[in-house]
């Protein structure tokens, strides 16, 4: 199929793209990133991974809602795959963020609102998979975890928008994301690498998500064939 060719080209482009991003991230003069020194380069990895986390979890929630409405098994699979990627990128974002916090403010963890949010997201998705592991019936598992996913979706805005406004929590130090993006007076070359990293990581997520779904679908088809023929297929 024609679009498969294009998809292949896209994947190779992604490969080269990320090489370019890495080169830019490490070879760019660190002074363009402010006064924090070489460590500031981590922002090229921390923010994109945090963004992909949010994206993956949003996508997962959408598929969960779709599942609850139409009970399609594919939707459940998609939700799980995206959640899996979400938790992976969340881990990366938490670790890189912690390193960034150490560089900027001297401590690996501060319980500042954004840090708390990402940590709770990590816990939430760990709980999601724990729930899935604890239920043996396929349909029950899908329904329960989809409902839990939606509950999480409802609760997240409280973390994102409310917690930062609390007098007790905020006010320790300004949030990095608000600073960098809100002002957006990043050095133009740094901005270029940053945006490229954002696009690149998104591309990695999309490709991996698509792959996971294809594998899931193939396995599903194999199951169907096995049932039809009555004998197991050599995998």
């Amino acid at each position: 199929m024609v679009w498969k060719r294009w998809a292949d080209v896209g994947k190779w482009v992604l490969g080269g793209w990320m090489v370019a991003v890495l080169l830019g991230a490490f070879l760019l003069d660190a002074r363009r990133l402010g006064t924090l020194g070489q460590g500031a380069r981590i922002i090229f990895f921390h923010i994109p991974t945090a963004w992909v986390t949010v994206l993956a979890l949003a996508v997962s929630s959408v598929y969960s809602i779709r599942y609850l409405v139409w009970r399609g098994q594919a939707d459940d699979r998609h939700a799980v795959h995206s959640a899996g990627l979400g938790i992976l990128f969340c881990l990366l974002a938490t670790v890189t963020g912690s390193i960034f916090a150490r560089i900027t403010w001297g401590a690996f963890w501060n319980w500042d609102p954004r840090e708390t949010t990402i940590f709770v997201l990590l816990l939430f998705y760990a709980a999601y998979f724990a729930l899935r592991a604890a239920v043996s019936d396929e349909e029950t598992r899908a329904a329960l975890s989809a409902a839990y996913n939606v509950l999480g979706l409802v609760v997240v805005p409280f973390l994102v928008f409310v917690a930062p406004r609390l007098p007790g929590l905020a006010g320790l130090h300004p949030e990095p994301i608000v600073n960098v993006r809100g002002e957006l007076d990043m050095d133009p070359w740094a901005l270029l690498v940053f945006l490229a990293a954002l696009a690149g990581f998104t591309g990695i997520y999309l490709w991996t998500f698509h792959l996971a779904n294809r594998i899931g679908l193939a396995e599903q088809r194999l199951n169907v064939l096995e049932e039809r023929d009555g004998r197991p297929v050599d995998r």
Partner: protein
Amino acid sequence: MGGLLIGEEAALYVVLAVALVVWLGIFAYLWGLDRRVRRLEKALERAGQARDR
């Protein structure tokens, strides 16, 4: 960074090299998966058609 064994600039290149290797590894893995799934999908097509005939 650096300071003890190698200079700061050299450390930077080391990290860059490591990152490139890691990325190329991940990319190769994903590409391999992609190809295997492609073959699987084709085999499924054929198997499905054979049954339907």
